[in-house]
């Protein structure tokens, strides 16, 4: 069985998704003998009638998803670096130098850690996107807040273990600036999405047929 032009199908999925009935109609007509040129015309028409605002809304939503992943990665990286350094700092009281034990600090393990962090960030971002599609901002804030609280608690413990020589204020400043950055990013990225929600195509539930009155 002949398949519709692949690039046209990809463009349709990318720029005018959501209308499965239309997509099925196009495939059915193509299978019935319509040519590739006809299919391309339909795809272009579908993209055109979707309207620039609808396309823009989806583009903003995708941008939001990317930023969500980047913020997640930033927070994970911040937390990972912080935990490793604090752990190393605490273990030095026991005479253990964690970081110095790592072979080739600037080589293999550094890149491996970066890749692992990236993969974890992508997975967590994907999970947030899938599980909290309508509450991504709240998810980011909850995740970021938890991370920062954990970091603050860990540093407080480190401060106490050090014998009272506090460096907590540095952390407060660091965490606050990170939080402000995250909140600012979220506010800037998500505002247009909310204002364009009404333009999104909504899949309707199947309804029983009601024929024309006679």
């Amino acid at each position, binding site marked *: *069985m002949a398949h519709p032009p692949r690039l046209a199908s990809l463009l349709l999925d990318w720029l*005018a998704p959501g*209308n*499965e*009935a*239309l*997509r*099925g*109609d*196009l*495939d*059915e*007509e193509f*299978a*019935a003998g319509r040519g590739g040129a006809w299919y391309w*015309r*339909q795809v272009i*028409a*579908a993209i*055109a*009638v979707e309207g620039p605002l609808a396309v823009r809304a989806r583009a903003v939503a995708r941008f939001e998803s990317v930023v969500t992943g980047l913020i997640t990665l930033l927070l994970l990286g911040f937390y990972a670096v912080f935990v490793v350094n604090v752990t190393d700092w605490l273990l030095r009281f026991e005479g253990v130098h964690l970081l110095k034990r790592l072979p080739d600090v600037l080589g293999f393990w550094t890149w491996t850690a970066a890749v692992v962090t990236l993969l974890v960030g992508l997975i967590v971002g994907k999970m947030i996107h899938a599980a909290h599609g309508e509450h991504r901002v709240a998810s980011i804030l909850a995740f970021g807040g938890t991370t920062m609280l954990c970091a603050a608690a860990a540093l407080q413990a480190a401060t106490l273990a050090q014998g009272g020589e506090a460096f907590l204020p540095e952390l407060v400043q660091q965490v606050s600036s990170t939080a402000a950055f995250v909140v600012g990013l979220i506010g800037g990225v998500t505002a247009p999405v909310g204002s364009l929600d009404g333009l999104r195509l909504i899949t*309707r539930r*199947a*309804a*029983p*047929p*009601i*024929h*024309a*009155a006679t």
Partner: protein
Amino acid sequence: MTRRLLTDFEIMILLAIMRVGDDPYGVTIAREIEQTAGRAVQLPAVYVALDRLEKQGLVRSWIGEATPQRGGRAKKHFALTRAGLGSVQDTRDALTALWAEVPGLS
């Protein structure tokens, strides 16, 4: 009272739905317009108009069966509502009144 009359494309779609009769969907509606009225139509435009008509309560839709030729995607069938039928009749009456006694046309 001001009536909201249908556009030419909308009334073509509603009439095509009534003419097809047997569970019309995008393809059969577009074919009916092309074959009967001789107007080439784009399927996406048909769906946009159907979506607008459904929001206005003039048509209703329901999901039908999926076939291999459709890539496993279900059809979306349409039928006129009572309001849709009334709107068609209103538009026909208005157009008929406008056509009547036009100078130069018999």
